[in-house]
């Protein structure tokens, strides 16, 4: 049977994570159908139909789907579910909110937040905040799965031409109303969700020197992190702390500057995709997890780093 993926979007654009979920879903079964529920979401359906991995797009359009409400999405999906062996979406707040509702009504035990597809019923998922990996096998007939988007590459977004079919809407729930949405706009991305994080440690020597970090963060549109020693010394406030007792971050790029790499710090960043360490002590433990290590005095290296970045004109905002 085919697999059904629920797309996340804002009625105009597809959310990036959906492309990662498409990759995972097509590893389970290549007969992949994507469901787009929205209001005037034709551009969304169209973009998804261009993804080569997608075999069919089902588009359900109605005013009641302007905002995403799990109670309204669920019956649409349940109605379609008969034809599918797997129902899938990404494990961000959208999918986390929605999928268990579907799973419960299908009397299925959901498999959350998978990071690897082993076979069509067996998956790898992190438990205990990533401190252990469990291989689990679902014995339910229909499988409800959420996918950790950062563990799968995004699918290519052009070259395909899947058919788009219209689906039927269902009655909306009267018990849940959308009131408003405030997108948090700040000059700098949030530490927890930033694509790039640059962190300073005790090697920075003062709060003032953090401006070297800030300048690079501005350039890379990165969030600013810190070690606890830097926080304790008063160089920066504790919302910036990364680690066991601070935030856990999983950016594409993590740059550790003047941080020795204590295990409590690593606990908060070792899942980052690419780690860069700048430290003058060649034996600092941070180098044992860094993809790229630069043994240098940060007061020389940071200004040069900024200079080199300025020479590039390709940095994505």
């Amino acid at each position, binding site marked *: 049977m085919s697999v059904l993926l629920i797309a996340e979007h804002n009625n105009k654009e597809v959310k990036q994570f959906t492309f990662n979920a498409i990759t995972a879903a097509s590893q389970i079964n290549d007969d992949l159908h994507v469901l787009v529920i929205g209001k005037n979401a034709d551009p969304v359906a169209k973009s998804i139909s261009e993804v080569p991995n997608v075999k069919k797009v089902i588009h359900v359009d109605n005013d009641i789907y302007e905002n995403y409400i799990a109670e309204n999405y669920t019956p649409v999906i349940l109605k379609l579910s008969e034809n599918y062996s797997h129902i899938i979406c990404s494990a961000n707040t959208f999918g986390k909110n929605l999928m268990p509702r579907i799973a419960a009504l299908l009397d299925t035990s959901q498999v959350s937040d998978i990071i690897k597809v082993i076979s069509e019923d067996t998956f790898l998922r992190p438990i205990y905040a990533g401190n252990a990996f*469990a291989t689990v096998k679902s014995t*339910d007939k229909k499988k409800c799965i959420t996918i950790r988007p950062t563990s799968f590459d995004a699918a290519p977004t052009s070259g395909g031409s899947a058919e788009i079919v219209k689906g039927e809407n269902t009655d909306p729930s009267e018990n849940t109303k959308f009131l408003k949405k405030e997108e948090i706009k700040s000059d700098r991305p949030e530490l927890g969700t930033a694509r790039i994080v640059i962190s300073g440690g005790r090697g920075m020597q003062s709060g003032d020197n953090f401006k070297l970090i800030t300048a690079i963060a501005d350039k890379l549109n990165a969030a600013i992190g810190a070690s606890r020693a830097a926080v304790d010394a008063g160089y920066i406030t504790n919302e910036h702390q990364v680690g066991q007792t601070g935030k856990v971050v999983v950016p594409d790029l993590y740059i550790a500057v003047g941080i020795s790499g204590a295990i409590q710090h690593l606990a908060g960043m070792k899942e980052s995709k690419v780690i860069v360490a700048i430290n003058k002590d060649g034996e600092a433990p941070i180098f044992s997890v860094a993809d790229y290590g630069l043994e240098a005095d940060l007061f020389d290296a940071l200004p040069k780093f900024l200079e080199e970045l300025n020479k590039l004109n390709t940095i994505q905002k």
Partner: protein
Amino acid sequence: MKILVAVKRVIDYNVQIRVKEDGSGVVTDNVKMSTNPPDDNAIEEAVKIKEAGKAKEIVAVTVGEEKAQETVRKALAVGADRGILVKASGTVEPLAVAKILQKIVEKEKPDLVFMGKQAIDDDCNQTGQMLAAILNWPQATFASKIEVKEKVLEVTREVDEGLETIEVSIPSIVTCDLRLNEPRYASLPNIMKAKKKPLEQIDASELGVDIKPRIEQIKVEEPPKRKAGIKVSSVEELVQKLKNEAKVI
């Protein structure tokens, strides 16, 4: 109004998780257990609502082994009035917990059910939504602010893009985020008093729900260790590698 709060007993968040050598799970013997952190927020919120005169009774419920009592006692010490322990051993998946809670809801008839957004052991993030589905109640997940109005709740949710506010009618299910409030301490006098509060024990088998696991855990292993990469000799080289090799800038 009556609020039911589900609390789970998990390995304390300060304890370093150790995977068993035979791959059958993680070590839990003689390991310090505590209340799942966002469940503390759930209890706290219920107590605040009661203190504001908007709720009459708070019932704390847990599903688990005999020792999970401690978790209910802790909830009683910070302000719940009554406790329920549904005894079940072995693996109880979120779907099964939701089915058990459904029975408790039918019996207790609460107006609201508060729970944590996610348990820090299995990180499933399912139970609240599943309970809402099988009760056909509205759900407000990842709540970072809750306002009790007449017949409805206004809930601010922490979603990926920022904050979203929804209104759900009562009865409903709310799952709580860590930022909802700051849980109070269980003070010694209150712990002493909590020992005298009623705690009912029910055997899961009496509830007539199927709680057999549907997911087979094949093995649990340590996450792969990260390996050291290379050392670069200059800033120029670093930037080149980041751009052309890692493709992250």
